[in-house]
């Protein structure tokens, strides 16, 4: 049987693409945290640094991410549909002992994150949600250059309750998805045993929690008026 049609092969593809996205989420958060001012020039300088990279690197990175997301979604849906039929009729009494809300709802938290991703890209990457505050159209001075005003765009966005609410809600879905997904990665690629497995569950939940707290801090501090443009 082909790797891409075998049961464990597809699991491994889910695990590796998922983990790649976790790594992206960690780096993305570290970069975004420049909004709190630890980098000279703040998030505008960080954004400018990214955009000034050679085009092939930017395009290659974006295409690789797109491929990873597509593989994860494709096999995620395929495996979920197959597994739905694995038990043709549910038991009259539901009595799960180890499964969690997070593990049972991976497809739904995944769908929410996917939809959020589209909104997030439209909002901050393609900047079509609120064009008047689009960073690409509002240049501000940085050192001796004029650069897109990312800070102004982010602050204007998160001042809106609904925008902040969508971001915070998506981060709840991300937390649930990763609290199961991270430990699942280690189990699926075989990097776990009876001693490490319970610790990996805790580690995965902690990383998911750290990402959740890190990400919601940005809209929260802006909406509360602590972080100003």
């Amino acid at each position, binding site marked *: 049987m082909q*790797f891409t049609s075998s049961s464990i092969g597809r699991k491994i593809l889910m695990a590796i693409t998922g983990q790649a996205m976790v790594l992206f989420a960690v780096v993305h958060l570290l970069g975004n945290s420049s909004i709190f001012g630890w980098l000279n020039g703040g998030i505008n300088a960080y954004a400018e640094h990214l955009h000034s990279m050679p085009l092939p690197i930017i395009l290659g990175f974006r295409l690789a991410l797109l491929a990873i997301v597509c593989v994860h979604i494709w096999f995620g849906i395929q495996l979920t549909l197959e597994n739905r039929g694995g038990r*043709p009729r549910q038991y009259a009494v539901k009595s799960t002992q180890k499964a969690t809300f997070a593990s049972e709802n991976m497809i739904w938290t995944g769908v929410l994150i996917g939809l959020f991703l589209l909104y997030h890209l439209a909002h901050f990457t393609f900047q079509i949600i609120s064009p008047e505050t689009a960073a690409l159209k509002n240049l501000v001075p940085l050192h001796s250059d004029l650069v897109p005003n990312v800070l102004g765009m982010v602050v204007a966005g998160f001042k809106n309750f609904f925008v902040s609410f969508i971001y915070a809600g998506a981060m709840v879905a991300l937390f649930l998805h990763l609290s199961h997904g991270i430990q699942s990665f280690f189990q699926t690629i075989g990097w776990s045993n009876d001693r490490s497995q319970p610790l990996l569950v805790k580690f995965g939940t902690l990383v998911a929690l750290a990402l959740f707290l890190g990400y919601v801090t940005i809209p929260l501090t802006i909406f509360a008026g602590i972080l100003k443009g």
Partner: protein
Amino acid sequence: MSDHKTMTLTLIVWRQKNANDPGKFETYTAKNITEHHSFLEMLDCVNEDLIHAGKDPIVFDHDCREGICGMCSQVINGAPHGGQDRTTVCQLHMRKFKDGDTIYIEPWRARAFPIVRDLIVDRSALDKITQAGGYTSCHTGGVADGNAILIPKTIADEAMDAAECVGCGACVAGCPNGAAMLYTGAKVSQLALLPQGKAEAAQRVKNMTDAMTECGFGNCTNHYECMAACPKGINVKFIARMNREFIKAQFA
């Protein structure tokens, strides 16, 4: 019996004439049950009453009634084997229930396990997985000297832990996806750990996991319900080991 308090229980049992019958729940009353009855003995009592009343008894699988053969297979109140840690249905006793309790009894439910009748399912899909590679075909020659093949104690113990699997199918019944990863993981591991099994480990893991998919079992999503359901306490570390074996096999 007279010196024991007895219980009366309401049983809601899955009845199905054959694989094509849609099946339905029927309600029965179990009377004069003591705390010393095993769960299967309690069903024996109910069946006696049904036979006397001229009705079809509830059909269920059982054999040794000592907790070692893995034949008994019932989902009791949603939990395979009744949910008591490391216990088969025959070793589940009525002292775990109270007078007046309502108990749901269902067969293993999985796509790969068609229902034969009532609580009996066809578990031959598990045999097909083992037939696909759960053996070693190396020529071993004459009888070797004792300890000619050195196997560390910890490895021998771990192989035995995997070999504890009795093939009852509770892991499949407990899995929301109807996957057989714990069963297959245990069978792959017990051989892959030992020198005699290592020779064919790569082909074995591919063949057995292919058979798993072909038999209609679902895919593992790491809920670990299988480990909770297993009457022999097989650990999900054997699934991780099988995953490792599978990855190694890609480069073999």
